[in-house]
């Protein structure tokens, strides 16, 4: 399937894209997150698309996943209003202050710290410590 972006045309294998998206969506909605960090590598590596297309479009795709997942979780009674209300303003504030801080830090450093943090968290979840 062909998509174009700002005058450039790209060939996209929608079969791979949809299959990957489908699997990532199952996993991420099962665990309660959007799937963004998985979609970006999927689109850049498996679909071979350049970064500048992927950023916005992956956000749109995972929005579908998050929206549907939210509705289903609510249907099952997994939504706690009080907890949500305590986190929602924080998310809004984070979205507001984040970009301002982002201008001053290098994303590579942040990513490396995130990697270390994720690994520690993963080890904790697996019960290693």
């Amino acid at each position, binding site marked *: 399937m062909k998509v174009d972006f700002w005058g450039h045309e790209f060939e996209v294998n929608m079969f791979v894209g949809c299959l990957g998206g489908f699997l990532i969506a*199952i996993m991420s909605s099962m665990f309660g997150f959007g799937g963004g960090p998985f979609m970006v590598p999927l689109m850049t590596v498996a679909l071979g698309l350049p970064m500048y297309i992927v950023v916005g479009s992956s956000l749109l795709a995972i929005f579908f996943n*998050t929206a549907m997942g939210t509705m289903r979780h609510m249907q*099952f009674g997994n939504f706690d209003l009080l907890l949500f209300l305590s986190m929602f303003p924080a998310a809004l504030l*984070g979205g507001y202050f984040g970009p301002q801080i982002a201008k001053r830090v290098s994303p590579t450093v942040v990513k490396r710290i995130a990697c270390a943090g994720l690994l520690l968290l993963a080890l904790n979840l697996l019960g290693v410590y």
Partner: protein
Amino acid sequence: MKVKFSMLPLLALVMMALPITPQAQAKTEAPAPTITLDKTSLANGGEITVSGQAPAGAQVYVEFYSADKKVRANRFDSKKDPKTGQIPYKFYLTHEMPAFYKILVPKDMQPELDKAKADGKDWKYSEVLKKIGADAAYSAPAKIKIDSYQATIMASIIGSRGNLLDAMDEKESKRESMKLVKGRFGKVDKLLAANVETQPDGAYTAKIKMPAGQAPGKYSVTVTAVTERIKEGDKETVKKVKSEAATFDNTVSFPTVYLDSAGTSINLIWPFILCLVISIFGVLMGAGGGFILNPILVSLFPLPHTIVAGTVMPTVLFSQGSGIYNYSKIKFINWKLGIGVGCAMLVGGFIGPKLTEMITLDQFKFAFGWILIVLSGLMFWQTTPGYLEKNKKEQSILKEFKKRAEECAKKGEEGTAACPTDQK
């Protein structure tokens, strides 16, 4: 006349027997244990000493639970039945599980509890209860209404629970309630503690240790004294007496709040701060942050993983939405691609949440741990020099596009050759 005569000795015998039977009953009827609580109100947890008088030589058990607050508990039976070799695919659900439930058992049962703990997550609640004799005290959860559904693989995929089956009989319901209790509360320490001390004359004391962060409201305490255990081959008949129910109150005050669906109380400051830090971090990284928020919440607080997953998702939904809005303003989104893949994700997002229900907290943590390892690997790869080089070129093109898009939007020149739209 003959008949009357022969009946007389029989009648006499019956009349003699009658006074004996009530007397015999009076002998085996032990007095109910007394129960006294040294405190009747707690502020977000604390310790209460239960004491009283039980029949001498009896085993004393103390059952206490949240009488006010009920939560949902469910179990998906996907274990192969050893007898039939089939997987039942049955789903059990109740909305009447007490938000807190614990049984205190005699001190000398500690070795049994230690053995159960050594079994890890495979310990069997019903077996342990039987071994330490606490099933005589197990009463509150046995009375809850449990619905059972016959699910099929197809049904689980679409997300329907299946067909509602007929109600189970008392025995089955009691057994299933034990499995639901274990599923809901998990660890041995949460459900059982061996700290009941009895004197030879029958006086007993026990300590109720309420941790912080539990459900507020009325708690009910009942003492069961087992006076006799008669074993006949496989069956065991138990003679027990129960005390009156005593109550105590647990109160939580703002900012600690009781979460209805979770069944636990939490100080709201923590999720707020956590979410703030993680959102900022997420923006810096360029990712959402839901995948960090989830495991941290699950490991730091006594929240069930289903609630965490269901509440974090709408939280990130808004930040995603605003991100899409901002990007689309500068015409940065390829709608065809996004919607195309998005539809596939719609279906996946439909199936996923059903599966959350079917896994246990430990499985959740385990799987998430591996997901995070993969993610951290992916992210590390994104910081390697090779990737950065390739990315740099694309990033600069990205920046250029962004600049052009913003300028076009400002000048209102969309649709011209200088600012091609990407709509088809």
